[in-house]
């Protein structure tokens, strides 16, 4: 009985918080990381949380071009990359190895520990400046649970 009362209070508090935050703020971006480039291309991963929005593109001074990509498994068991027009944020949007990533094409040499400025373009929130850290490619997998 005590638990039920607690649960009701928590849900009430959450409802209030969500109501106050209804004015489309910029998504909160965390864990922005780039695997240190080993070839001409590199991948940027991040986690975005917030209300509904759509990631429509990104730019960074360290790459000639940037694309939104998804890695999927074909029916024959091959890993295939597809270019996307956008990525939907619906509460959360997770970019991680083997799934969604922002591809940096013809990327400049980057060293582990470097910080890279990236501008995300959201459909509703507009442009958002973030910083991504260059990490060992193996460390981009942190948090992968599959």
């Amino acid at each position, binding site marked *: 009985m005590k638990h039920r009362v607690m649960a009701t209070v928590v849900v009430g508090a959450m409802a209030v918080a969500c109501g106050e935050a209804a004015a489309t703020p910029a998504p909160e971006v965390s864990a922005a990381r780039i*695997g240190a*480039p*080993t*070839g*001409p*291309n*590199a*991948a940027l991963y991040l986690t975005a949380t917030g209300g509904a929005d759509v990631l429509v593109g990104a730019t960074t001074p360290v790459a000639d*071009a940037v694309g939104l*990509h998804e*890695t999927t*498994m*074909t029916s*024959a*068991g*091959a*890993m*295939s*990359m*597809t*270019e996307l027009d956008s990525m939907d944020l619906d509460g959360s949007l997770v970019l991680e*190895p*083997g799934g969604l*990533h922002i*591809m*940096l*094409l013809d990327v400049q040499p980057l060293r582990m520990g470097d910080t890279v400025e990236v501008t995300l373009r959201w459909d509703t929130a507009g442009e958002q400046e973030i910083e991504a850290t260059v990490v*060992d*490619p*193996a460390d*981009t*997998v942190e948090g*992968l649970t*599959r």
Partner: protein
Amino acid sequence: MRGLGWRRPILMGMVRGSSSALLGVTVLLLVSACSGPFSSATAQSLEGVVIDPPQEKPSFTLTDTEGERFDFGAATEGKLALLYFGYTHCPDICPVHLAQIAESLNELPDVDPVVVFVTVDPERDTPGYLRDYLDNFDHRFVGLTGTSKELATAQEAAGVAVAFRTGEGADYTMAHAGQVLAYAPDGLGHSEYPFGTRQTTWINDLAVLAGMGATGSR
């Protein structure tokens, strides 16, 4: 084909939960009944996706980054070998696999496998380019290329999906097999490592596989 690799988590969950000891025992019996000839205690400590029964090592010859012919079977005889098909323009899964293997080997100074990276993009991956790419990870890694036909033959021999080009223009990408194949010194493939394999799994399994010699389990 896939044996304990996917059964193991269920088994471990039952044992850990142990709310019903009887049920745990039943599951154990079922698992051992299904595992057939695969009964090596050493192989059972593998954490990767176990192949049951183990697969023969594929036979193919390609060209290494020095321009020499490389006979995969002969070059890896009696040794632990890892085989992966990828390409250097791959930003996502290839560098993660290779970095994980390189770092695992740093933790295992006594394990010295032949790590073979076969390009599926011979047009862009020249031998020199392939060498520079692999040197980012470990100078010992072997890079192989060949004609499109030779590369397709090697992938078929290894039993993986044959890679194909996706996308248009100069920035095309390749769809390719995502798993790393492993062959123990006994010449058999006991397990494979799909994308998303944890570092702890690599470190455990490389040590286990290195001990699986031609005479069977230790």
